Structures are given as C-alpha cells and as structure tokens.
C-alpha cells in the first residue's frame, strides 16, 4: 500500500561505482596526515585489507558449521561456547570476542541484523556485504522479516515457523547455525563446507544442496 511505486536503491552501490573525487581527496588527505604523524605505517593498509580479502571470510563460519553437522560434540560446544569452539579451528578475533550461535530447527528460523550500525561477526563471516550495512535491510528485517525474506531474498519461511530476529546492539555477535540440507548426510566435512553460504549464516538464505546452481545464495 505504501510502496506501490518503485523506489530506487539508496545508496545505489549497484550502479557503476565512480568514486567522488572529493571523497578520494579526503581519504588521501587523512592517510597522508596519519602517515606524517606516525599513526599509520605505509604497509598497514595492504596488510589489514589482505587479512579480510584473503584470510578471514565466510569460509571460516562454513568450516565451523560443517564440523558441527558432522561432529555432535563439537556442535554442543559451538552452541554452548562459540568463542572457545571456534578457537579450536583457529578462528577468532576482532568483532568476535563474544559470540552467540543461534540454531535453526524445524520450528525456528533465525536471522541477524544490526539496526543501529553494522555489527557483524567478522571472524566467522568476514566483513558484511553492502546490503547488510545499508538502511533498507536494517529497517525492515526487524519489523516484517517473513515478507522481506520472501520478497527480496527468495527465502520462503512458512507462516507456521517462528522467525527470531537478533539485533546485535551490544558487543555480542550473533550468527546462525543452519540446518543440514536433507540428502547430504553422506558427504564429508570438506564437501559440506562448499554448501554453506554466507547468507545461510546470516539467516537470509539456506545452505546449498549438491544440485544447487553454483551461484545460489
């Protein structure tokens, strides 16, 4: 009723990203001043960005989920103390100092958000995607998650199923332990890792099945 005309995506990060020259100059100004004042080293930008571009990403979370699917004891530890359980796999760090893993079941679907900013469990999921950080998702997922998941994420959570929304407002970081897809019981941990998508650990998607197209969410 209130959205019967098409609103644009704002900010439109789908459009050809042509950097604003003023912003580029502001960044260089800040960078050069931080270098001069001894706060920043010339190597820092590449080293820090590399960490999240090459090492810390949703594959970490997928490894923990695959282990939980195949090792019931690990699953219990992951639900009881995710920080310690992840540490067993060498996973941890900034924005994952305190974590809670919420388990999807036949009765409950979980989904995470940060309405106030962009909190996200970096050590297990990497840095958040743009849509997670921008206002539209944050505004709607807490109010009518079922309609949003159906309308924009192609995820149909049946009306009978409870949706639990976890708004990360303090320093506890939530993420979702998805249900293992039926028919994958015989797969190895390594094969299962390939099925576990970032979105399935946010709660805006489900794990792939072995016959899903490769690009499936």
């Amino acid at each position, binding site marked *: 009723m*209130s*959205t019967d005309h098409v*609103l644009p*995506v*704002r*900010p*439109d*990060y789908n459009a050809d990203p042509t950097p604003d*020259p003023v912003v*580029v*100059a*502001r960044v260089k*100004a*800040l*960078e*050069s001043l*931080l270098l001069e*004042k*001894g*706060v*920043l*080293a*010339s*190597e*820092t*930008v590449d*080293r*820090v*960005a590399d*960490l999240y571009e090459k090492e810390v990403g949703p594959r970490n979370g997928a490894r923990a989920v695959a282990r939980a699917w195949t090792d019931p004891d690990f699953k219990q530890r992951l639900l009881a103390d995710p920080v310690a359980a992840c540490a067993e796999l060498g996973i*941890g*760090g*900034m*924005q*994952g100092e*305190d974590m809670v893993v919420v388990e999807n079941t036949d009765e409950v679907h979980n989904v995470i958000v940060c309405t*106030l900013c962009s909190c996200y469990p970096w050590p297990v999921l*990497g*840095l958040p995607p743009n*849509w997670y950080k*921008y*206002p539209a*998702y944050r505004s*709607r997922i807490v109010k*009518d*998650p*079922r*309609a*949003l998941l159906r309308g*924009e994420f192609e995820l149909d959570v049946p009306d*009978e199923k*409870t*949706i639990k*929304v*976890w*708004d990360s407002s*303090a*320093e506890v970081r939530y993420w979702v332990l998805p249900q293992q897809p039926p028919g994958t019981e015989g797969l190895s941990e390594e094969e299962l890792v390939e099925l576990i998508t970032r979105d399935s650990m946010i709660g805006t998607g489900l794990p792939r099945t072995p016959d899903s197209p490769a*690009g499936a*969410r």
Partner: protein
Amino acid sequence: MDGVHDIGGTDGLGPVGYRPEEPLFDNPWERTVFAMSFPAMASGLNLDAFRHGIEKMHPVDYLSSPYYEHWLFTMEKGLVETGLLTEEELRARTQQFLDDPSAPLPQRSDPAAAEAIVGFLRSGAPARREIDAKPAFAPGDRVLVRNLHPKGHTRLAGYLRGKRGVIDAVHGAFVFPDTHAHGLGEQPQHVYTVRFDSVEVWGPGADPRTVNHFDMWESYLVALDGDTDDRAALDR
C-alpha cells in the same frame, strides 16, 4: 540521540539491493578507509566515540552516502576532537589532493607496526569487564524498557523503548557505550538479551510468529513485577 541511524522499523527506504556477488571494497578508497580505522582508533578514538561520530552525520548524508564515507566522516571529526589533527590541516591537505590527485603519499615504512595491527585484529579487543555487582535480572524475568532519549550516544533503539520483554540471556558486564563514547569512562554494566513479542513491539498488525531480540545494558531496563499492568490496555 534519536538519529536516523536508529532505523529499525522505518518504512519507505526502498529495496534492499541484494547483490549476489560483490567485491569486499567497491573502490580502493574504501579499502584504505577500512584499514586506516584501526590505527586511527588505536591513537585514541574509542569504538563507541567512532560509532557516535557516524550518528552525527546529517541524515541526508547518512542515508545517501557510501558506507565507508561514514567511517571517513567520523575519523575526520573524531581525530580533530582527540587533538591529533586540526580541521585546517584536513581542509588544506584535501585541497592539495583535489588540485593534484596524483600527488604521492608520504612514505613511512614500519612493517612491525603493520604487523602489530594485524595481530590486534587477530586477537580482538574485548569490551567485557569483570564487575562486583551481581546481575539484577535472570532469564525469564519480565522487564520494561525505559523511555530514555539521551542527547548523546546510546545503544537503546527507539523501536523498543517503552516495550515489555523477557530476559532471554545474561551475558556478563560490558563497557557502557553511553558514557564511553563521551569520555565519561567505561562504567561497565551487565548486558542482557531481551526478547519481545512482535505484537508488543509493532502493534496489532504484526506477524505473530516473529520474536525480536535485542541486547540491553542493565540501566536501560526496569523490572516488571507482574501485578500491575496498565499497558495491558494496549492489547484490548
């Protein structure tokens, strides 16, 4: 502050703009801003002040600018406030790079410093603190969220103020952002996950099979004893 950053429940923001594949950074400047933020914070701008700085963007800028421009904004303002930089320095230097976009950056090689930042990211920076006070609430306790409208930083979202919920989990004590963001100390308090019935939060039209969870510092909450309850009138 009651800013537009506190966006939970706001209608009319349009599509989510899901992008199946996207790079971690759309532009090199975003990569630089992300990475610089850690040494910048280490220089004396705490995470709560960093977040509050973003909230002080004009709502139009907040809602229309690329995400990492928020981080750039709060670093510029915050590092002026901590005294590391001056506005004049930033203005002059920005003009210099506008006039000559290909001007080289100063070189300051320090691989150990870069490695120290990476080590810091790998180990984290816990906001958890040990305090003497016992938690005031236990799982299952009914609570009412206070109707607080502080002028400064808070992590108490507008959509939950004045609402009744139930303590879902007790997490221990954490640094209190409402003071820490303003240089008023860590003043750690117990933090609870509170769960809310969607109809309590969003009114009679809400999807009854959704539950909102939100982490609350103890001073955001008051106990409900269950005997007196005039807000039951809302449900009639």
